[in-house]
């Protein structure tokens, strides 16, 4: 689909640049070092960091935030290490995800992780079964509390993202 000029948001790049992790986005000179070394791009062409950065710079806000590709970064930091302009692309992708969440777009995999943390105080349930197994191996009993995690989630508005009991 061709770019529609009247749908572009010229301020999107400034929003990204003012979000932690996105500060250096306007430094990008599109060399493509990020994409060349990207292990995800190597498997699936939908994920292309240079293209995503360019879309942000053009102001394609909706196309970026509603996309599935912002969630495909595997956070390996290869691009960040090699970027000659210090765009810190991995952190930039985190910034884009953070903005997407604020705009109401979140990948269910991340909702599930936050929900597990709210429910168990850990990504995985630590109950009687797990502790019995640990005990048999001579490992100390483990207790995970949810109170502080929930407090933190609430203080930053993440409680709204967390899914109730499924």
């Amino acid at each position, binding site marked *: 689909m061709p770019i529609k000029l009247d749908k572009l948001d010229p301020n999107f790049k400034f929003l990204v640049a003012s979000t932690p992790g996105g500060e250096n986005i306007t430094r990008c000179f599109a060399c493509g070092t990020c994409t060349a070394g990207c292990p*995800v791009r190597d498997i699936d062409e939908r994920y292309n960091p240079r293209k995503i950065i360019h879309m942000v710079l053009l102001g394609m806000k909706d196309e970026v935030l509603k996309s599935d590709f912002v*969630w495909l970064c595997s956070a390996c930091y290869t691009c960040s290490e090699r970027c000659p302009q210090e765009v810190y692309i991995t952190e930039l992708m985190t910034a884009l995800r953070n903005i997407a969440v604020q705009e109401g777009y979140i990948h269910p995999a991340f909702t599930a992780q936050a929900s597990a943390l709210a429910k168990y105080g850990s990504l995985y349930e630590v109950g009687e079964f797990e502790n019995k197994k640990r005990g048999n191996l001579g490992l100390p009993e483990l207790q995970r509390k949810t109170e502080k995690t929930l407090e933190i989630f609430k203080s930053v508005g993440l409680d709204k993202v967390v899914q109730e009991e499924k």
Partner: protein
Amino acid sequence: MRYALFLGCTVPVRAMNYELSARKVAEVLGIEFIDMEDALCCGFPVKSINREASIIMAARNLALAEKQGLNICTLCSACTSVLTEVNKVLIEDEELREIINKKMGDIAYNGKVEVKHFSRILYEDFGVDRLKTFVERPLEGIKLAAHYGCHYLKPSEIYDGFDDPEQPKSLDLLIELTGAESVMYQGRGDCCGGAILGVEEEIALKMTKKKLDHVKAVGADAMISICPFCSVMYEGNQKKIEKEFDTKYGLPVLYYPQLLGLALGISPDELGFKLNRVKAKGLLAKLNGEKVSA
């Protein structure tokens, strides 16, 4: 040497062999681990959706260790990266530290804690030469493929240059001190794909497969991992990959402390080998001098 042991979420539930072997090895080496009872998740899983939440969670864990008067030892590389990154930011940015302390309310962090992965502690603080003096049983005759993973080395600016992210050697040296050979293979620095397993399984598994193929190509007896999620990918999902892509690996994936433990003379049982999904029978037989049929 005393550390607050930060287990995180995955290790104590899905990688008990890692925890068991790390504790055992530490005991033999005289490294003392103190458990962190009120520790939260490190914050890594929520960084993508809310960076502030991950900072507060990490800060709280740092503050808890500071209260114990201890530096943190981690086992998971994702925990290591978030705790190290937030620690660096909070040490350098006093203003942010005050804001985060205010948000935490009941506890404060003053920037006095150091965070290190267990492998880095062994390499950097305990030292390769000193480790060698503890080797009771040299593991000669086996070829191993080191998997560093991403967050153990990167982003490099938070790790004070303890190793080179493009050409790392610390894990190879840790492997070789046991007497085993650390083999080179294509794509050593490649990512396991674990971070997007829940987002797009097919891509993640293809990333995992790529490395399994490269490791198989050089005929390694096992792969050595230092992160529970990398092991979930290479070991936990190995059968699934074999099935989906109609191939066969049968490649054991050991945690580094399991390997080191063998060299220290600890029995496989005590190192949790029974919990390894891909059994290391062939490798153990080889070490016992038995002939192994392929």
